[in-house]
């Protein structure tokens, strides 16, 4: 069963069109990665799904419900959480407060302050530190923990590994399998192609706002991905 379906989604920044007829289907309990170069429209796609940006055409259907009339903050209540680009941790709140405020939407489920601390022991160590004073890797873990506190059915992660040390990237990806094991579907935006393919069941490659290649992660050839990523052989 599809948890998320996009039908011919288009989006604009003013006159500039960022997404062209994107259609995508994400199965419940799966991990889908969206790969693409800078400016390919990956973050825009996540913003449209999370509701912080309105599509100019097309439909976003989540759990069978058309989301076009549902505003951003209400989508969290419906079960979509976004880990935003740049992590956006609240600087004047402590790590504990950042995590706990994530439960604002009051959705019940496996994730709570204790289970996310078990998932990320590192942030448990930083529990009473201000968000302002945390390092990049810590911020990413806090951001994911904060999103998990809403017990989402669908977790959107923008640039999961950007700017992180390899060991932190490994920890973040390791946690992903535990998140999926609790029944959450994940849509992942990545620039790190091999990492994304390893972690996901299906993948799409975006090129200049169009989905040029979609398939099962383990069936996509490197050659095909490379061509799609760089637009080789695309008219």
């Amino acid at each position: 069963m599809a948890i998320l379906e996009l039908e011919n989604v288009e989006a604009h920044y003013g006159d500039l069109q960022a997404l062209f007829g994107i259609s995508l289907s994400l199965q419940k309990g799966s991990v889908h990665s969206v790969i693409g170069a800078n400016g390919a429209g990956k973050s825009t796609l996540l913003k449209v799904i999370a509701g912080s940006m309105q599509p100019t055409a097309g439909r976003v259907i989540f759990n069978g419900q058309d989301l076009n009339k549902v505003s951003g903050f209400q989508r969290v209540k419906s079960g979509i959480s976004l880990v935003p680009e740049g992590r956006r941790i609240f600087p004047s709140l402590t790590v504990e407060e950042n995590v706990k405020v994530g439960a604002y939407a009051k959705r019940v489920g496996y994730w709570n302050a204790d289970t996310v601390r078990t998932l990320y022991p590192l942030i448990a160590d930083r529990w009473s530190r201000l968000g302002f004073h945390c390092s990049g890797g810590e911020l990413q873990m806090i951001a994911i923990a904060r999103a998990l506190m809403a017990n989402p059915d669908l977790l959107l992660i923008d640039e999961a590994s950007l700017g992180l040390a390899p060991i932190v990237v490994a920890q973040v990806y390791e946690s992903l399998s535990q998140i999926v094991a609790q029944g959450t579907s994940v849509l992942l935006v990545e620039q790190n192609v091999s990492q994304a393919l390893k972690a996901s069941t299906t993948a799409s490659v975006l090129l200049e706002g169009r989905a040029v290649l979609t398939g099962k992660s383990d069936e996509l050839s490197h050659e095909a991905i490379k061509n799609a990523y760089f637009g080789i052989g695309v008219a």
Partner: protein
Amino acid sequence: MIWTNAILQGLLVGGLYALLASGLSLVFGVMRIVNLGHGDFSILAAYLVLIVAGHSNLWLGTIAVLPIMALLGYALQRSLLNRALSLGVLSPLLITFAFSIILQNALLKIFSSDTRSIQTESLGSASLKITESISVGYLPLITFFVGVILTLTLHVFLTRTQLGRAMRATSDDPTAAELIGINNRHIYGLATGIGLFAAGIAGILFGMRTQFSPSLGPVALIFAFEAVIIGGLGSLWGTLVGGIVLGIGQSIGAQINPAFGVLAGHLVFITILLFKPQGLLSKQRGT
């Protein structure tokens, strides 16, 4: 002994300024809106109590008026100020300036420019004798403790409750707050609601202590604003300290020469602005 008395009386007046300022401070802290009508809203609350108390009694009046102030704040934020916020920093400022003008003139039209006060029977003049030469009025004492309790309550609300955390999160980063399911417009409405609730408490206690007229709002705003700046923007405890510093400054000034009171308060404000412009207890990080 005269000076001890001056400092003590100043401290108690400071409690009133802190009360006036706490709502202003909260609204500014959450939305970066300076509510230029804040003082007029507190005067409005005093007049509302006069009306309600005329038909029942004083305490019932106070209990009835404060929720009205909170609802008014929420409604004004959701209807006008939220829209203005999306248009830039100047629009909300202009709107609150309009609130100030409208309130002053409406109050003038309805109640005339005669000074009024809220009658508290014996409470207004009763006092507690501390030594032979120092005694403090019950009403100033109550005002001071209400100020401390309000600050403490707001502090606990902002740090210990989920709604308070959400308010601080929205203040930090409204976009990220929406991403965790917070409706910013609702949070802003609550902040202004609490702000006018606090303005109401201040206005009512002010009206019990002294005489007021429709034109007093801007003066109240200036004292409140000075208290916020002295204490440091964005810090509630700072606002309490700022109110007390301002009160003591005025009181000592008045002790030197009765005409100097208000002027001395302004001088204290300017001195702090010169030497510690970020305020005494500022939480602002260097950017």
